[in-house]
């Protein structure tokens, strides 16, 4: 999360835009919650862009993301202190087709040479093509998704990555609100419990005990 400052500062210094996408899926799918987390980070990046004076660009693959992204960018630039920098051209809808999305993004990256490429949310197969285009223009790359097949790809290509469910914690961390940060602590205890159950289950299974029968599942 600390890299967000560095990334936006880099874009402002270089005078090149920041590219942001929440990927193929919208808020109406099974990945809606993941995209909600991606939008939260986008709002924070827009605020930083307003503070540093960097331009942003967002490509939408679902039409209902257009008004949400416009509102986020507008309020982000206003909060950042540069409302005049916001332009409706910063959000571009490119149809519901995935190939259209990835080719439009790649074309825009090669033309505009952004200094930062951020992919946060429910990204699909377009992720690698977008990251490869970002690598070609030597952009700083940030990735974050809870989809397991993206973890290795992000580890290979991105400079900074939110692993697994870290994207879901981003909203709470960015808010700095003690109540929300307490929720993250609660989640850590929950995960510790899951790990303990996994270890006990593995020991019991290897000892030949029917652990599922013991706990009545």
């Amino acid at each position, binding site marked *: 999360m600390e890299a967000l400052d560095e990334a936006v500062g880099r874009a402002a210094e270089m005078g090149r835009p920041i590219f942001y996408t929440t990927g193929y899926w919208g808020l109406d799918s099974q990945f809606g919650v993941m995209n909600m987390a991606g939008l939260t980070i986008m709002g924070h990046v827009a605020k930083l862009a307003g503070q540093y004076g960097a331009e942003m660009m967002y490509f939408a693959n679902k039409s*209902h993301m257009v008004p949400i992204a416009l509102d986020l960018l507008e309020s982000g630039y206003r909060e950042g202190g540069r409302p005049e920098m916001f332009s409706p051209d910063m959000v571009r809808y490119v149809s519901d087709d995935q190939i259209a999305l990835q080719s439009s993004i790649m074309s825009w990256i090669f033309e505009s040479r952004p200094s930062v490429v951020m992919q946060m949310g429910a990204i699909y197969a377009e992720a*690698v093509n977008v990251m490869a285009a970002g690598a070609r223009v030597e952009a700083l790359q940030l990735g974050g998704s809870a989809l397991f097949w993206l973890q290795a790809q992000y580890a290979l290509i991105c400079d900074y990555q939110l692993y697994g469910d870290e994207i879901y914690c981003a909203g709470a961390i960015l808010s700095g609100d003690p109540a929300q940060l307490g929720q993250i602590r609660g989640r850590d205890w929950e995960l510790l419990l899951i790990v303990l159950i996994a270890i006990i289950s593995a020991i019991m299974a290897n000892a030949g005990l029917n652990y599922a029968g013991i706990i009545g599942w």
Partner: protein
Amino acid sequence: MLKRREVSIAIFVLSLLVILFAEYTGVGRDVSSQIMIAVTMIVNFTLVLGFYNLFGHHIRIINRKNMPDMYYSVIFIATFLIYTGLQYFWPSGYDWTVSMVFTPLMMSVTMLEFTFLTMLWRGARVRNVFALIVIVSAAIIMIQQSILGNQIRPLWNLGNWILNVPNKGVTRGITILAGVGIVLTLVRALLGYERSYLGEVR
């Protein structure tokens, strides 16, 4: 007096609670399905906004007479008008265009697995130990899946071990973590902390 933002949050929270309640108890499934239908209708209506955004962008390019982008924008708008006209006035012509022009073009563009791997190797950088582990594992699996790899027994066994032990373990771990994370975010949304869907910066 409720403000516009609070009304939006109330609609979101109430709808979500009704859907969750119906899902877990089976009570009120009719109301839940009506909410889902309403969501689909609203999402479809937002296509008008997408249409406005997309056409606005291309019309601005044409007005600026920005070469060669202008040609692409003209082709885009012409294709849209031709497609729409064909669908309403000559459906068999529309079917022919889809099967003989659109589908072959899309198939040639897609080639998903090939472009996927090519792009991955082009963009890959070994920045740390984890990236090195990923790239070595990927190389082993790729060789294992080739005709040559099939013939080398230790390599075949190593590839299978990578797929069945560390890969499967990590997949399960991430799936569990993602599940916990979804609950975490939904609880924040239900409590009104998470408001990014309203276009609000936190």
